[in-house]
């Protein structure tokens, strides 16, 4: 198992390099321009100088290599310096700078990360917590009323887009009932009970929208997987030797059913980091998804490049984690 993991990690390096090159090339070929939003009163000569100050006058390959150096050498060194307080060299090195804000991209990401983890991560946790019992009961009592309703709700939750459910919830709970705010207050600091209540209130709507979507998806998987296992011979054997029904269901069937589900959940984790782009935009949560969408709109290529690449790293990493977990949960699977 260990050597397998090491081998996979080694193999990830060239994969990620290729991914980073493809992202860079795609962004470079896209006909977007960072100066598109500037007023036309800024004359062309000045625009040319602004472009040069962003490094856009360099050829494609140089810019790519520069980004590699900034991202793989300068940024980690910078994090190392901040954590240890030791200055490497003269401590002055070019970091990956966003074109729109002219500030380091990594700082922007660090600033946005907590909101995304809180809102989207919470929605994911809730989603999983709701999905597993719903899936288990739906499968165990197949075609019962509970299963019918559960199937209906999960199908709706899965197929209705979040930009629709989000607006529907705003109309009902913000405009009509006025229970929850529609705009996420990003300046809110939680330091006492009332601000905590306020924070919970403003998180309710976005978390609900996303939790419904996540739960629907995972519940379908749990149900299907449970159904597959319930009809297996080992279940009959367990029942025949007098194991209690609860133990059959929760120990034997559930554990076996969770193998594919865990993979699905693990593969879904990177999507937390990419934020729920649409939901964050609707509720004005200043998370990573909103950062990515504004960067795309403003052709802030270093920011888009860095964000997408970090997502790529996470996807590769969680693929590996899913594979390793699979081996741990199912002793029959051995990679060595």
């Amino acid at each position: 198992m260990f050597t397998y993991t090491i081998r996979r990690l080694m193999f990830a390096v060239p994969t990620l390099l290729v991914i980073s090159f493809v992202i860079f090339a795609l962004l470079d070929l896209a006909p977007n321009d960072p100066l598109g939003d500037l007023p036309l009163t800024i004359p062309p000569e000045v625009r040319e100088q602004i472009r040069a100050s962003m490094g856009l006058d360099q050829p494609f390959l140089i810019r790519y290599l520069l980004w590699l150096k900034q991202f793989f050498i300068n940024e980690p060194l910078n994090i190392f310096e901040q954590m240890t307080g030791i200055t490497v060299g003269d401590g002055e090195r070019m970091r990956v700078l966003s074109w729109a804000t002219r500030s380091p991209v990594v700082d922007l990401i660090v600033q946005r990360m907590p909101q995304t983890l809180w809102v989207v991560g919470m929605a994911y946790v809730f989603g999983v917590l709701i999905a597993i019992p719903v899936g288990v009961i739906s499968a165990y009592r197949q075609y019962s009323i509970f299963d019918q309703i559960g199937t209906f709700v999960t199908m709706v939750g899965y197929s209705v887009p979040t930009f629709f459910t989000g607006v529907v919830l705003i109309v009902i709970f913000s405009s009509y009932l006025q229970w929850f705010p529609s705009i996420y207050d990003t300046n809110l600091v939680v330091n006492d009970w009332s601000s905590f209540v306020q924070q919970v209130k403003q998180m309710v709507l976005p978390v609900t929208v996303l939790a419904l979507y996540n739960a629907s998806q995972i519940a379908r998987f749990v149900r299907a997987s449970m159904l597959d296992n319930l009809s297996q011979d080992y279940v009959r054997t367990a029942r025949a030797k007098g194991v209690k029904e609860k133990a059959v269901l929760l120990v034997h069937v559930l554990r076996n059913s969770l193998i594919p589900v865990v993979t699905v959940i693990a593969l879904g984790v990177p999507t937390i980091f990419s934020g729920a782009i649409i939901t964050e935009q609707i509720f004005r949560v200043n998370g990573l998804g909103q950062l990515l969408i504004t960067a795309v709109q403003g052709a802030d290529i270093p920011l888009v490049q860095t964000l997408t690449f970090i997502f790529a790293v996470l996807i590769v990493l969680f693929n590996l984690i899913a594979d390793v977990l699979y081996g741990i949960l199912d002793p029959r699977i051995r990679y060595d």
Partner: protein
Amino acid sequence: MKRTKILLAGTVAALAFANVAHAQRGTDGDLKILFWQAVSTLNPYLSGGTKEVYSASLTIEPLARYDETGKLTPWLVTEIPTVENGGVAKDMKSITWKLKPGVKWSDGSAFTAEDVVFTWQYCTAPDGGCAQKAQFEGITKVEAVDPLTVKVSFAEPKYYPYGAFVGAQQPIIQKAQFKDCVGAKAPGCTSANFGPIGTGPFVVKEFKPNDVITFTANANYRDATKPAFASVTLKGGGDAASAARAVLETGEYDYAWNMQVEPEVLATMMKAGKGTLVTAFGTQVERINLNWTNPDPKLGDKRSTVEGGKHPALSDPAVRKALSIAIDRDIIDEAGYGEAGKPTCNIVPAPSAYVSTANDWCLKQDIEGANKLLDQAGWKKGGDGIRAKDGVKLSFLYQTSTNSVRQGTQALVKDWWQQIGVASELRNVSASVFFGGDPASPDTFQKFYADVEMYTNNFDGTDPEKYLAEWLCNKIPSPANGWQGQNIPRYCNPEYDKIVAELSKTADLGKRAELAKKANDMLTAEGAHIPLIHRGQISSHSVKLSGVKMNAWDSELWNAADWSRKK
């Protein structure tokens, strides 16, 4: 009866006066402003975007501003220098600004002439990529004569010397804060760029890029009774319609910038009675540029260049005029702009001294006249209803940027042109590509690979000299100059060049206005473009907010120090 009225008026005036006299700093709480395009940085020299210039204007200020009528107003100086008061040299080669004594930066240090000199050095440093560099063009030296006197010298006589340090685009930044951020190091100074120290009414407390800015009242502001608000929260993001709703309908915000929303949607929101709309007209004109060169793809590299030859149809003055009078500008205005637009036939629509009426014939739609004009010029309708002459069809590719109002206008114009036997193919390009100016892209407005194209342009400040110089023969974009150059229609007339040259050598304001009008008339009459709508800026504010003076010549937040909440 009359006496009571006078008495009453007197009492009201006295009350109002008493109110002003009792005004105190920071008594009106938090001012909530919504910019639906989030602010990326607070250093306007590094961005140039309108949202950055406006938000920074709460903190950093220029030497002089334009007020809501477009009049130059001293801000950090004691008076506007003129030749009469000796501030401008007789040979027009220098201008001397006298700074107001006692002005302090928000950190308590003194504001001096050195800071003004530094601002010039900062923006003109090589490799800095300063967005406002053009404003400092032609300046050879900026020097501090004494701590309160700044002398700006020009290489050539400058007949309109109020370019540099005037208006929200070029505020003064503090030397002490930015001295290590010159040139290539400018983008690296994140904390300075995100929190410039200024002389303005508010101080940056926290800046979250692309999200929200928190300001507090400046304790060192030069007027001890201002600003009335203790803090400002400037939130960004979302879209124009929901921003309008937050002010006009729910009242969550006090002020929202740039209400680019269909007029009827705004009208419904207004019914809630929580906010009002404010408009101001600057120099923006939505126009259709006509391509004087041939955009035929067969020409390859010579496409839309002077070398590629004249446009086969649009080179005929009759066609250009017919296209213009076939359009009903009132309907375009009503459908897409409402309060934020007025029909116009001028390319210089303001200030009022520069507005010409010579081309007002175009304001009235005249389909019949247009048809007659084309008939006389020999353009005959074919079986498909499209006019043609010598094998050249009046069929045009009409491009613009993607934007619902522009697509609506395109559809209207296409219909009117259809009625005079002109076919048009509509096309829209994403704004970031269209205005991006990437020389490698075939879809930019500079390349103009189309017959006609529509967009808005304007000029900074109140003087149109630089703007009118955009139509000079040597400003035509071509592959040789990397498609740079602002003469987008590829118009070229030596007579016109002469007028603009004369304008740049005239100091008398009355004569300048006359020449500018002449140039403006020539452009419309000859059909370099078809002016459509004089566009205003439209914002909204809560009915409880007082003191807003909507300004199209400077930052909309230019007088935020005077804003207060009605009790």
